[in-house]
């Protein structure tokens, strides 16, 4: 029932957090990790992957509809 003052809410960005978690697990806890661990990459590659994850979290937080209080 739609009542006055009712606004349809989205998942509050929770879906994006779950997607980020899946991406983090893909990077650091999946066969993909075995691949990059054995790919003879430069020493800074793990840092790049880690940095990529942090950048995505930063983007997610910047678009997340934050509340004033936790």
């Amino acid at each position: 029932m739609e009542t006055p003052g009712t606004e349809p809410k989205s998942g509050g960005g929770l879906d994006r957090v779950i997607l980020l978690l899946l991406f983090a697990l893909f990077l650091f806890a999946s066969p993909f990790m075995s691949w990059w661990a054995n790919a003879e990459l430069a020493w800074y590659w793990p840092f790049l992957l880690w940095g990529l994850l942090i950048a995505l979290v930063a983007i997610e937080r910047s678009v997340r509809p934050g509340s004033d209080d936790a």
Partner: protein
Amino acid sequence: MTLELWQLFGVAVAYLAILFLLAWLAERGYLPEAIARHPLTCTLSLGVYATSWTFYGSVGFAHDSGFNFLTIYIGVTIAFLLAPILLDPILRLVREYQLTSVADLFAFRYPGRLTGLVVTLFMLIGILPYLSLQIHALTQSVEVLTREPAHDLLALVFCAMLIVFAILFGARHISPREKHSGLVVAIAFESAVKLIALLAVGAFAIFGVFGGFGAMDEWAQRNPEALGNLFEPISQGPWLALTLLAFAAGFLLPRQFHMAFTENLDPQGLRTAGWLFPAFLLALNLPIVPILWAGLAMDIPGDPDFFVLSITLDHAPAWLPVLTFIGGISAASAMMIVSTIALAAMCLNHLILPARFLSPRPEPHLYRWILWGKRALIALIILAGYGFYRVIVHHEGLVQLGLVSFVAVAQLLPGVAGVLFWSRATRAGFIAGLLAGALVWFVMLVLPLIADSAALSGDLPLSALLDPVSGDIWTAATFWTLALNTGFFVVGSLLTQPTEGEQRAAAACTEQRVTPLAGRVEATSPGDFERNLSRLLGATAARTEVRKALDELGMSRHELRPAELRLLRERIERNLSGLVGPVLAQVIVDDRLRLAHRSHVALADGIRFMEERLADSRDALRGAMAQLQSLQRYHRDVLQELPIGVCSVAPDGEIVLWNRAMEELSGVSRQEAAGKPLQSLPAPWNEVLARFARASERRRQKEPIPSQEHAERRVNLHKAWIANPRQGDAQDSGSLVLLVEDRTDVETLEAELRHSERLASIGRFAAGLAHEVGNPLTGIDSLAQNLPYDDTPKAREAASKAIREQTARISAIVESLLAFAHSGRKQSSTREAVNLHELVEEVIRLIRLGQKEKNVRFYNETSTTTEVQGDAQQLGQVFVNLLSNALDASGPEQAVGVRERSTGDEVIIDIIDEGSGLDPDHIEQAFDPFFTTKPVGWGTGLGLSLSHAIVSDHGGTITLAPNQPHGTIATVRLPYSPSRGGDA
């Protein structure tokens, strides 16, 4: 380059002095508040995570286990990535329920003294090796720099300074609401120093040792095993286990919990830290590989744990080893200070205070006792760490000692799942799981440490038994501790039923519902609160706590409303939770501020507080919760805006709802009324509403409300009971809803209408009146003309008598008319015993005026003794209307009369005519306003409608029926006068 011990000592003292100064400046407000609250400060304060292990040990870890060292930070990154579903809810709980430590959190969710006790003891045992690790790292770093064994005195002095700092800046306030901004700023500063020092050493490794990035790459290509040693262990080592351990440690380590939640100055800071803190950790780890390779390239002998220092000794600028040493002190001191403060709070709340409160004697100086207790504990814990450092022979690397603590902390993970997600979890399950995990942890990791065996290298027979394939102790320990812990937790929870307290705590943790406050506090005033609490807390603390809670709630010290006192009790419990922990707070409040033995728990009870909480809540309510809130607000708004006064009363007599119409009608605002019993409302509403609420009748018409400002008001009152679905009979446990309908304006209009109708009737009588008055006047005139010629006294007397008779006749007519046309437009009617016969006679006398030439015969067959209860004027109007209609319908020489019948309780009066009769189709509509069958100009159509309203108002009825063979019978039923003057 070699530094002298006294130089290092001086540097350490100078650095700690700067730290003191900074903390003091922040605490005193000399540093702008914005700096302490800045998200960057919050992020850097979380950098307490990076201890000596990170600062020195990461290089050794990378040397032994390659990129596995990154797991310790990637795990934290994942924990902070999940901040919206992991950290934010914990922060909400900590702030809302004044929890001060990780033990408080679990003691809140799994209520009982045992929970806090087990968690505290486990954390204490788990963290002590970690504390000793910091002291060990400091003395080792001194040995590296001075190239001679470190003096034990150095460690002792270092510990003493940390004790002083932790006491001065970490145990300054007793309430968790008052944050230690000095501590936050100092720890953030320490993190910045750590980062700068490590980046400086990293830069020296790249540019000073190798000569740039290109040269370092060339070295790496010449030494492919160096790169291989970094990558290969990833797929062989305990990557996943370590990531999981770090994930737990990221927010459950006592020091992390303390900085992220307890000392959190601004929730926004934690949100930013979600990405900024992992970025800080990334920056902190970037130099590790260059430093390791520089150490290898320089072929430095000794423990790789201290490559950070040793590569700077010979070729770096003189300030770099000093800066590195300071960085190491930063890492060690920050960890020790914050961990100790957090552990001290846990020990105080869950080990010391419960024992203290077992004593029946109140503590007269509770605050001082708590403050000094915490300070003594800080000293004891740091000294215990020092003792551990002295006892344990440190054969192991820095990382191993740290990981022992990490596995301990990870044992709290299943419990956290119960806090945040699984409301079925019970205390028995949590404690069983934790003990099982702790036992395995102790056997696998601590016993070998104490025995100084070689277990940590993976040679222990038990570890080989548990993990026969890899022999990796960390994976085995993580797997077995958590598997057993989780198994016992789940099975234990499912085998036991959650208690009421556990269910309530679980609901509060998982935000399943906003729990309404139920029950009434036995203490009836804030003064009673103080007296009751003082028996346990002492007079000063009791007074301070009650007044603080009153101030926070904006309540008066003379507050007496039960609902407000219940809210005060809840606030005091929360504040006490910050002081003595949630378990003791609940014990104290349950014992000293008892709820009434039998108190109704109704649906409406607490609705007001739920509404206020929802309105005040700035949390983002999601999904169904938000829908529910909108729906609830919509319904509340409907009630608020109804043009009829609505007042809802909870079973304990408190007013829950007082809408806008009620405010306007009564002049009593919602704030004044809400939460009060009806009897406490301002007069006259207290009397009117309370009396009606007690009465058995469901409605009351035209209740007079005396008013000083207006003329008397009239209201209709209605009431209904709303049942509580959880309880039985509505009248016993439900809420009462009172509707108050203002009839004053309607009454005024009705009075105007009656007056107009009377005037209209008088107009109809005007012609007859002229005739009736004119005839006697003519007679009087003739008599007066003849009077001078009547010469005998007898004749004059006869003439005089005739004149008096004629004037009496005129007077009677005029009086009847005046009585009927009474000029007062009174709004309220006066009920009195009215003689029916006299009333009908009077009316017939008037009606005769309007009969013109019809010569209709009137008769009055009512008993001369019958009396009805009513307003004579209004009832006269009814008979005028009915007899006028009868007269209008009658032809010449026909009869119109009034006959009385009696039944047991009422008088039945028939107004009978033999006229044209009423069309049966019109009987239904006859009482509708403006319905008339008379020609235009003959009737307003309001007569019967008004008569119907008046008779109804008198508790009677009026009906129309055909008369046989001709005419109509109008039947009026009226109640007898209570004096029962009638002959019925």
